[in-house]
């Protein structure tokens, strides 16, 4: 579990995060949503230690990354997997090389054991057969899946995903969402997803944190979001005619078929 307590972050005198508190639960897909410029990327970067908050604490199962000495942060990072918006795969490495990378850098396993683990992760994201391809030779969706395989190679306790669906077609987006949700439940990972994608919000949002103008405005899950009275959240999530119709349907019928109810 990750607990964020009263974090404040400013840039050049402009406060981007105002006393934000939130809890990200183990074994759940935790979503951070909000408009562009609302501060959710700053929150995500603060969570993974790429930005240092001005005040407040970020507890990874009780360990505060804000006040932790550098060598402990380095150790903690071995428990973190991250999926970047642009995948951030190493161009000079093949798919297998990318997935092997954290194993080579941080484990003392034999080469055979590392290969076994890498092939297992590649199979898990349904990329068998693409091991020897370079990132430039595969599609955006496949790149995202390689990045997921790399992120789970070390069995992380925490998985962070920054806009995992950006640049993907709707069908591939759903596949990535399902994969992230399955992995979260299968391995009991604390998954935090920063997203704009309303399909993700309504499909896999087990714990949704809505950030508006640098403040945490709402917390709930994908069922509660249909009946929220929060105006800013309603404007954000149900901005399109289609989603408004979905909300009206759910309000009238009291339910909606989710991916996990197949």
């Amino acid at each position: 579990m990750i607990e964020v307590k009263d974090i404040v972050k400013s840039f050049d005198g402009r406060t981007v995060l105002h006393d934000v508190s939130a809890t990200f639960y183990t074994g759940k897909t935790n979503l951070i949503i909000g408009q562009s410029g609302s501060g959710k990327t700053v929150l995500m970067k603060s969570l993974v230690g790429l930005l240092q908050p001005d005040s407040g604490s970020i507890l990874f199962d009780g360990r505060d990354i804000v006040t932790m000495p550098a060598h402990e942060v380095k150790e903690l990072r071995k428990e973190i997997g991250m999926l970047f918006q642009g995948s951030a795969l190493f161009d000079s490495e093949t798919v297998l090389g990318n997935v092997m990378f954290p194993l080579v850098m941080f484990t003392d396993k034999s080469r055979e054991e590392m290969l076994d683990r890498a092939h297992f992760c590649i199979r898990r994201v349904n990329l068998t057969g693409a091991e020897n391809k370079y990132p430039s030779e595969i599609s955006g969706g496949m790149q995202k899946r390689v990045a997921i395989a790399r992120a789970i190679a070390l069995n992380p306790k925490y998985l962070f995903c920054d806009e995992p669906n950006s640049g993907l077609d709707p069908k591939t987006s759903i596949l990535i969402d399902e994969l992230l949700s399955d992995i979260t439940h299968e391995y009991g990972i604390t998954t935090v997803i920063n997203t704009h994608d309303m399909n993700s919000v309504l499909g896999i949002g087990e714990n949704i944190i809505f950030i508006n103008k640098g403040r945490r405005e709402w917390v709930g899950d994908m069922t509660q979001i249909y009946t929220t009275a929060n105006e800013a959240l309603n404007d954000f999530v149900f901005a399109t005619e289609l989603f408004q119709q979905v909300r009206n349907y759910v309000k009238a019928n009291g339910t909606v078929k989710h991916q996990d109810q197949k």
Partner: protein
Amino acid sequence: MLISNSLATFGRYCLFMKRVFALPDRWGVFGRRTVAEVSKLGIDSIPLVIVISLFIGAVIAIQMQLNITSPLIPAYSVGLATRDIVLLEFSNSILCLILAGKVGSNIASEIGTMRVTEQIDALEIMGVNSSNFLVLPKIIAFVLFMPFLVIICIGTSLIGGYLVAVFTDIISVSRYVYGLQALFNEWYVWYGLIKSLFFAFIIASVASFFGYYVKGGALDVGKASTNGVVSSSILILLFDVILTKLLLQ
């Protein structure tokens, strides 16, 4: 303003170098990356060094012959002057200015692209010291391989002059070869090699620094690459003066 900016940049460069010269996380990975960089930065530069050296060596020999027309100056001076120009300046300073363009822009654009595509962030989040992981193998590889490039440059340049003697009638082969051997000072070779080590460090470290701190997109990677080449070229010229004063006087 300019001075304070320069000092701030120098301070950041020093802090960057402190991170670069940390102990590698994995010596095996470091070794493999260093060998790969030797191939990419060093061996891949050999064709360029050979082509440039051959032609410049030939040009130096022709120009020496054209300028040394006094009957009081012995004819073998063409070989002697060609040799000393190559040993003292061309094979190290000028060669490194040329390599600052090729290798420097290669390093800055590679690391800059990794920065803007979040590959460096990915390394940092994994707990890898990205500056050490990416930059140290480049610096070590290029500094170690530079003496070989200098020696190749010296040999090829002198062959360029020799070919002028063979294929033209402006100087005889025997006088050119005699000039190459006359009044030879071994220290000039060491002087060139020592200078080249400093220049190789400047090229690799300065280009890496500019690439590592890129912010923005593809346009900014291009700017960083240009800044890396310009800054390392100026530093090479500055250190050329300092090292010449220290080593030759």
